[in-house]
Each structure stands twice: as C-alpha cells, then as structure tokens.
C-alpha cells in the first residue's frame, strides 16, 4: 500500500511546506539510493499560497487547466486522468513529481459547496494513480478547511509540524482530536496521527528545551514525536533559492535532522 503523508496544522508558519517538500525529496532520494523498486514520490500542494509548488517547480502560475483546482472541478469519471495529466516533474529530482496548487484554490471550497462527493475529490482520483508512487506527501493550508479535510481523507499518516512555543503545543491535542474526528466522521480507518515534528527548535532558548521536555514526558504526545528540526538559516535560504535544504547545505543540522526523519518514515512504510 502506498503511504500518504499529510503535513497539517491549523497554525501558519510552523514549517508545513518546508517539511513536506524536504521530506518528499528525501523519501525519493533515499529510495533511489537504496535501489528500491519504486522511488517515485508525489507531492500534492493543497495550499492556495502555493509555496511548495513554487520552491519545487519554480513556478506558481498554475491555473484552471493544470493544477489541483482542475482536478477538484473535473467530472468524477475523468478526475483520475485529469490528476495524472496535471502532475509535473519537480526541478529537484526527476522522481519527485508535483501536483501544483493554484491561487484559484482559494475559491474552490466555495465552488464545491453542495457538490456531490466534494470531500473525496482528492482521495478518489488519487487512489487510482497512487500505485504508481512509492509515497505521496500532501502539504495543507493553515486551517481545517474543506481542502484540508480532503487531504486528510486521502491520507494514511497525518504528521503535525509544530514550533516549540507554549500556545502551539497547547493546541496540539485539539489538532489531534480534530484529525481523529475527521477519521471517525468519514470512516477512514487507515488514517492515523503518526507523528509530531518539532520545527525551528533552538536549543539555546531555555523555553524551547523546557517545552520539548514537557512534550516528551506527555503520555500521548511524547510517543508521537518523530523528529526535531533545528532552527537553521539554511532552511530559509534554501527556500529563497528554490532549493531543498539537502542540496543548499548538506552539512546543516536541519539537513541531517530531516534526513533522520526521512529514514523514520521509510521504516514505517516498510513495516506497514
């Protein structure tokens, strides 16, 4: 079964797009280097800001004919073919493919109100083409909107990036509850919250260390922590240059932390 990782949090600026793009590239590269039978990874950008699309493809001018918006508006029977046709190759790696976002997604939710099967408009077509991929990574917008719900319905693993700040960590349980509500409400037994990624961790700040310790000792959240990504200038500069953190600065601590997270996720993929 192809694992579908969705990076979600209703808080903005926590590193969803950064994590989604770098993890997607990492998965593809590691699978390739290990000689895996399939190393293709699909990145789906559901955020109308299209940051993940921009950094991986160098463009953000996708529109009504060549983006996720096109898929959402397609007829049910042709949606899978439309999705397949809208996928483009990333500039990062030939095996990293991208279903680009479009600013038009902003209005898509409004257009889809009352449309039949609207919440399944990503999962249905994706299920018909995902055997082509070793893994799928979905980047979401910073809200639990219809598009995020669509992404979660299509997913098998929800990963929550969070900054080590008090208010963010306080909201973590509510994020998990919301994801579980979606899983139970739409009866998607495959979906589970499979990880929390602490981003922008600065070990020089006492508050960060304290919060990380608190999280680790939490009976539920502690078990879910699957990666800690240090705050690192390389991450911001990599984005500015439309590069992954791995290629921008392979020696950066953030690069190594993301690589470790990639391995953790691959381990889960293999172990089921």
């Amino acid at each position, binding site marked *: 079964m192809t694992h579908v990782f969705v990076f979600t949090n209703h808080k903005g600026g926590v590193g969803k797009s950064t994590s989604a793009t770098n993890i997607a590239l990492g998965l593809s590269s590691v699978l390739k*280097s290990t000689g895996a039978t399939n190393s293709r990874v699909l990145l789906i950008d559901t955020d109308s800001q299209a940051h993940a699309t921009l950094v991986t493809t160098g463009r953000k001018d996708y529109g009504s004919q060549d983006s996720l918006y096109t898929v959402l508006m397609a007829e049910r029977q042709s949606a*899978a*073919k439309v999705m397949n046709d809208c996928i*483009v190759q990333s500039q990062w790696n030939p095996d990293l493919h991208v279903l680009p976002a479009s600013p038009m997604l902003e209005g898509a939710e409004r257009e889809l109100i009352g449309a039949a099967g609207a919440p399944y408009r990503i999962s249905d077509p994706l299920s018909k083409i995902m055997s*082509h991929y070793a893994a799928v990574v979905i980047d979401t917008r910073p809200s639990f909107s219809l598009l995020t719900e669509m992404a979660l319905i299509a997913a098998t693993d929800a990963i929550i990036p969070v900054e080590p700040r008090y208010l963010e960590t306080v909201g973590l349980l509510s994020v998990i509850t919301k994801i579980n509500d979606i899983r139970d409400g739409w009866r998607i037994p495959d979906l589970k919250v499979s990880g929390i990624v602490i981003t922008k961790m600065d070990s020089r700040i006492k508050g960060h260390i304290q919060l990380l310790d608190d999280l680790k000792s939490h009976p539920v959240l502690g078990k879910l922590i699957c990666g800690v990504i240090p705050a690192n200038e390389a991450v911001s500069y990599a984005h500015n240059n439309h590069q992954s953190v791995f290629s921008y600065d392979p020696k950066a601590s953030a690069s190594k932390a993301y690589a470790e997270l990639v391995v953790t996720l691959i381990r889960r993929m*293999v172990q089921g």
Partner: protein
Amino acid sequence: MPKPNVQRTSNLLASVTDEMLGGDLTAKLQDKTIRVERLLLELVRPHPVQPRRVLPERIHQAFHQQQLTPTQALRELAQIVQVAARQQSRPFTSVLDLLTQPEDESETTSELSPEETLLRDLVNLAVTIRDDGQVNPLTVVDVSEGVSHLYRIETGERRYWATWLLRDFIPDSNSDGTIPCIVIPTKTASVFRQAKENTSRSGLTAIGMARQAALLLLSVHGHEIPNYPVDNDFYRQALELDLRGKHEFTDTILAAMGGISKFHFSHFKSLLNLSDEALEVADRHDLDEGQLRYVVKLPREHHAEMITQIVQFNLTVKQVREMCDTSSDRPQVEPQVSRAAKQLLKFLKAAEEVTPQEFVTAMLSAEHDKNVVRARLQSLYQYLIEIDQALASTEKG
C-alpha cells in the same frame, strides 16, 4: 536561480541513512515480489507490435497511431458490427444484444461475421468481469518516462478491451475505471515471455504465429522491437533470417512458439509472404496454416482472392491444395474462365490430332447409339454457330 545539485542531495541522504536503514530494511525496499495493482485504464496501452490482433487491422492501426481513443476504437468496431447485423436482419441497439440467444442457435451463430464474433466474445468477457470480477490480472511493463505514466500490456489485451467496454458501453457496470495488473520491471520484459504467454493460452491464429515467429527471429538477430505501430513489411524482414544462424536460441524460440518443430516454424514464417490484404483476411477469419501454405505458392496478386474463396466456400486443406496446384500449373489462364471452358479449349486443340474416324468410333463406343451420336453432333454444330456469333460480336465491340 542556482540549479539544485541532485548528486549532493543523494550523497548526503545516502551517508546519513545507510547505517540507519540497515540491510534488512534495504532488502525489503528492493523487494521484487510480484504484486497485483489496480491501474487507471487510461495509463495502460496494448503493445503495438503484439502478434495477436484483437481489433480489426484498420482500427488497430488507427488506435496505435493515436487517431482513435480506446472508446472511439470500440465504437468503430460496434458500428461495423451494427452494419453486419442489419444486413442479416439481426437486432442491434446495444452491444448487449450480441449476448441474446437466437431462437435457432445453430443457424444464426454460424452466420456471425468475425467482427460480430469478436465483439460478442468481448462483451461476454466484460459481463463476466462485471458479474464475477477480474480473476486474472493483466501483465504489464512500466514504461513511464518522467511524469508520462504508461504501462505497456504484455499479456491480456482482450481483458483490457473488455474492461473499456464495461466502462463505456455496458450500463450499470459500476466500473471504477481501473484494471488489475501485475507490473513487470522493464528489465524482465521480453518477447520470449510474451510469446510463451501467447502460445500457451487460447493460442494464436496462424498469422499471429507468423508475426510471433518474426518477432522472435528479429529479436535474436539484434533488431530492436519498436514501441510504435508497424506494417507487415516490418515482420517480413524476418523472411531473410532463419534459425540456422542462431543455434543457441533455436530451442528457446521453438519452446516459446509452443514447442513446434523447425519445420512448422518455417511454415509459419513463410506465411509472411502473403499479400497485406490476404494477411488481414486470413487473420480475421483465423485460417489454418495448412490451408495458407498452398496459397503462399501462388503469385501474390492472387492471394487475396484465393483466401476469400477459402472463407466463402469453407474450403478444406485438400481442396485448397488442388485449387492452388491447378492454378500454379496454368498461371497464364485468366482466373475468371470456368473449368469447363478450359476443358473445351483443350478439346479443340486436341481435334487436330484426332482423325474423324477415330472420333466417331470413340463416340459410338461411349453412346452405343447412332441417333444419340447424331443428336450430340447437331448440338455441337449449333454450339459452334453460337461461338462464331459470339466471336463476331466481340470483334465488333
């Protein structure tokens, strides 16, 4: 914008992850166990050089030249069937009509055209898939390049077309537009595998076997098997090749052809000498190699006509042999001249060598009555007068 360094990324990830992944996990990632996957129909395509033709040649070529979508190709087939059905006063409002049992089955079934039989079989298969599911997955090769996803069918083209029928032509099918497939890595795909699959199941037509023989020969002689549609001249290149130059492959080739002898292999290959039209008709009507081997001996311009006669009169191998031998003995005689006319011509030529007395003796010995002999001669006079008149009218014309 600086270009991303893919190698640098790979190096880092490889160095960081090697010891973390461990050998066991790596082995699992390299798992080559055969798996059945449901693939989107649109991403699956038949192999254009597959020796077995499922669709009629014209539709086959148009489909592989991207002039027709799968749905359009099936619609063309349905239209051909509709015309054939109307000519026989059979109802045809939907493809499901083909499954309706005629009142007098023995009478009507025998009259079905090859296209009707083909479509009926496909519809039957589609209905079986609808009712019982597809038990036997297709075998496909992943030939995707970049984001152009494509799976080339190695075996199972009939199931592919049946699934399209189910999706677009059969109401209440609930088809989700996917098809179960076993995906074979490109490296392990080969013409030998395909040949074994082709010959081990329901078998190929004689023409299919000829194409199969050609593909195997071309392959072992280093010719590249193309991924685009080819005409019969491509297969005819094999006529200049044989097994003698490739002893090491002889057993493998004969085994892939279903364990036939070298003799039969050679016979199948020689069918490629048939004209294009003859090849198409013979393939469509599934004519036997035994019938076709005599047709090959005729001049190429007579192939199609002879094959049409085989189909029309359901000629046996013996009859075909006799007809072809006669035809090849006298290639100068116009084919539209009847056998009786030819015999009469022979008689007239022989008249110079027979004396009148000899002829009278022969007639009396055959008829035993002078009056009957006179009556026959009267008829002959009359006939000769009519021949003279016919000749005169030809000269005027």
